[in-house]
Structures are given as C-alpha cells and as structure tokens.
C-alpha cells in the first residue's frame, strides 16, 4: 500500500504564541513572514511547500506569495540539507587570499561530490556564499549558526572535527 506522509504543522502551541507576540511589533501580519519562516526552518531544517502554505494561512497570505519570499532570500532552504550546512565566503576579498582553496579542502574532506550536494552519509552540505562581512579575518565559514573566522586549508580538518 502506498503511504502518504501528512504534514505536521509547525506554528502551533508555544511557537504560535511566540509568533503572535512578535506580530505585535508590526503594523501588518505580513511583516511576520521572515520571522515565521525562520521558526519553520529552525524546527524542521528546511521549508517545504506545505510549510509555506501553513505560514500563508497563519499570516493571511497566499502560498504563492510566501513562496515568492522564500525564493528571494538565500538563507531559506527549499529542500533538506546535510546535518551540518557549511557556507564558505568566496567573494573578492576572501578570494584574493585563498578562499577557493578552502572550498576545495572542505569538499574533499566532507565527501561532498560538488557544491550544493549533501555528502553520502548525510552529514554535510558545502556551498559558496557571497560576502559574510568578516573580510579582515579570511576565510570566514559558517556551519549552521556558528560563524567561524580565519579558516585556512590547513585548519579545515580541525574544524570538521568539531562537527562530526
């Protein structure tokens, strides 16, 4: 028999209360879109079409509208990613001092076949990002919410030790 998974809402109970409280800060419910999407991603690790529809319902918007917002902002994941989502800055300032070599080292040592792909063991996804605002401490790398400065190709293995 073919089983379908039913979507379990995220914005319920305490989370919903917190969101409603947050909405007091703004003049419209629409302004709660970015905070609501962050809540969903924090709970589920990514934002599915069903989740977008849920956010829409809670904030009196349409699913298509919410999808338009999700697709604009690069930090929202539209599909599942590895347990440790790794972002490496390769914009000009970091590029000048070896950021691309850091990327290569990360791809090799995580087992990710290419940028954006999740490693076979599901632990890592590595992507390049644009300027992370730590240009004086090249190369900055984010692993989920952790912001790590001054990563070099030599220090990549030590970094990955902390995220097994």
């Amino acid at each position, binding site marked *: 028999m073919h089983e379908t998974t039913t979507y379990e809402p995220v914005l319920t109970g305490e989370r919903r209360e917190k969101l409603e409280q947050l909405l007091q800060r703004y003049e419209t419910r629409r302004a709660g879109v*970015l905070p609501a999407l962050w809540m969903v991603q924090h709970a589920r690790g990514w934002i599915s079409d069903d989740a977008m529809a849920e956010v829409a319902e809670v904030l009196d918007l349409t699913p298509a509208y919410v999808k338009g917002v999700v697709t604009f902002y690069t930090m929202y994941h539209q599909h599942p990613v590895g347990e440790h989502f790794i972002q490496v800055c390769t914009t000009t300032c970091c590029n000048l001092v070896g950021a691309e070599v850091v990327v290569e080292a990360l791809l090799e040592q995580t087992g990710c076949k290419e940028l954006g792909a999740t490693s076979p063991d599901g632990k890592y996804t590595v992507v390049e990002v*644009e300027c992370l605002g730590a240009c004086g401490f090249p190369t900055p790398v984010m692993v989920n919410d952790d912001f790590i400065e001054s990563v070099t190709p030599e220090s990549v293995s030590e970094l990955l030790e902390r995220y097994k």
Partner: protein
Amino acid sequence: MGYPHEPHPRETLVLSEHFGAADARTYDGWVKRGGYKALEKALAMDPAAVIDEVKESGLRGRGGAGFPAGVKWGFMPKERKGPHYLCVNADESEPGTFKDREIMRWTPHGLIEGAAITAHAIQAETSYIYIRGEFTEPIAVMQQALDEAYARNVLGENAMGSGKRIDMYIHRGAGAYICGEETALMNSIEGKRGNPRIRPPFPAAYGVFGRPTTINNVETLASVSHIINRGSQWYKGLSLSNPRSTGTKLLSVCGQVNKPGNYEVEMGFPLKDLIYDLCGGVPSGTLKSVVPGGSSVPYLTREEVESCLLDYEGCVEAGTMLGSGGVIVFDDSADMVYQTMRTCRFYAHESCAQCTQCREGTGWTVRILERILAGEGEMKDLDLLLDLGEQMTGKTICVLSDSCAAVVMSAVTKFRNEFEAYIKGARRPMLAAV
C-alpha cells in the same frame, strides 16, 4: 584598532575604544565607561535641538552614501500625525566591509544608545534593527543588550523616566545584499521580497508601513552619543582635510595586506599611510590597486593611491568614492581580470532583478568576463563591456547596477593590459572553455 591587535598610535579611537573589552558589552560595563549619559541628556532636549546638534557636527551616513545625517533627520515631519520609525541598517554586506559587525559585537549598548537618541530626535517610538541573517553572534549579543536595556528601563514605555516610549526590536534578514539598500530594507521588514522602491516618495514621507521613516547605518548611529556627549564642535574638529568631512571613520582593511583589520582614523587620513604604515604594506611587496569604499567604487592604481585622502571629497577627487570604507587591497600578484569577474558575479547574484539593465547587464558582464578568462575573448569585448557599463549607469531604481558598471569600467580603463593579455593569448586561460 583595538581588536584583536593593539591600537596604532595614529588611530583616533572613538567608536573602537572598547573593542575587545568583553564587559563593555554589558549594561554595567557600558555605564562604567560613561554610557547612557548622552541619552539622558538628549531626552531632556527638544527633538529639534538634537537634530540641530547632529546637523552642526557634520556627521554623514557611514553606510556608503555619505548623506548628512542631521539633514536626513530634518526631513521627518515636525508634527507627528501617526507613527514614525527608525530603521537601523545592520545589513552589512558590502564586500570589504566588516566594521558594523565589530560595533555590534563589542559595543552593543553604544548602538542602542545612539539609536535611542535618534529615535527621540525623529519622534519614532518604534525602531527596527535590521541585522543580516548570517550575523548570528551580533544578533545574540544585540538581543542580550536589548533585554538588559529594557530591564534597566533605558528602553520601554518610559525610557529613562522621560515619559517617552522607545521600543527597539531586532528584525533578522535572510540572505540578501540588496536589503542593505534602505528602501529594500523597509520592504524586507514588511515581509516582502527585498526590492528597492522608486524615489520619490522618500522614506521620510512614505517609509515602512507607509509611515515617515529614517534609516541609518550602524556606524552613523554609534557616533551619535559621542556627539551629544562631547559636542558638535569637538566632532567637527576631527577633520584632517576637508571641513565637509568630519569625525572618525572605521576603515575595514582587507585583501592582500599584511595587517588586515578595522582602523579608526580622522576623516581625511592619507590612504597610502593607512596601507604602508598602519597595515604594514602588502605581502608581495608591490601594491597594484586599492578599492577604498567597499567593492562598489572604482579601482585606484598604485599611483592614484599615493595622493588619495580618505574622506568623501578626497576620494571623489582621486576618481573613486569613500563609500562604506571597506578598503580592499590588491598587490601585484592579483589577477585583476579574475577578481573583476568575481566582483561582478557578486552583483549578478545579488541583483533583485527588477530592472532590465541590472538583471541582464550584470549577468552578461559576467559571461563576457568568463569568456575572456577562458581565452575566448576578442578585443571588441572590451568596447562591449564599456558600452554595457554605460547602459547600466543612472538608469535603474537603485545603484547596484551602477556599482557593477563602475567596477568593470574602471578595470577595463586602468588595467586594460591584463584584459588584452588574456585576449591575445599572452596569458594562460584561468577558466575552462565556456
């Protein structure tokens, strides 16, 4: 610069004085260092008087545009007919710039104080601190400082017992350079795609939620309490060259330089001294180029660096702009064609895609540069790049398009020999065939 290195004797520490001091982040630590006296003083002043003082000081927007802050505040309606808003632009995403992050990490109460004074001056009861989504540590530090400020009645219904409501909330971004553009920032707060708005109407007339709004950069606001404490005359006195550029600037130096970091100097400081003296020169020994204002300004050649003074007028005179003060340094090992391509790739990625010239122009520019780097370029491509740049300048809703154009046009003009080397086959292709 205070953190993580010892300040250089030629620095003037105002904003960065407490960088590196962990307890300066706390309410008590900030008060111990003279904090919140300025807010107390300002709350007892007429809002118009606060605006006048900041106008007199000559403080100009430190996010990149350099617009006089007091003048911007003066655009807000004097008579409050509904809510007014202050938006703190903490979206710092201009390549080469990393000063606002340090201000928030080390002196969060300094930002809160400056923003609260400003909110009082423009009669805004609610302020949003729009922090880019990637700045997880500044968000945590700022939230903790806000919680403290509320607990100590600095913020809230009755700010410092003044009878005035000052509320301040963090609004987290989600990855979009363009949301640092003030009207895109407002749209993002409203829960929309971060598309810039056409002006007029300007934010002071129609801003967030359609209300009168002022948007200011973190560094601009962090300067405000110092001006209130020590006076506009003191601030005006911090000026080495042009009297229209006053105060100190945090310069974020990065790229191929020996001592990267944030350096705080008086306006008008010589760029060459910053690079060779304060930052210890360049690794290869020979400088090739500097971009002083974050990536969105024209390149300077080594010769042009010699006479460039770091203030708004000085940089324009040198053929570039001070912008955000993100000083990106290239030594003679840098591949100017590749780095120009990489910078343009940044703009192509970040374009909101509203305007045809930007949406198509940034992408097309990147493809031409990639073709040149793959050894498939032709001489007419250089004319095409210059023509494209002109088409991308002065014709769009915001200046992301102009920024990309400025980079490419200055690269082709000033480093033409490097482009020609790829085209004529004198240099091995850097990229695989397109």
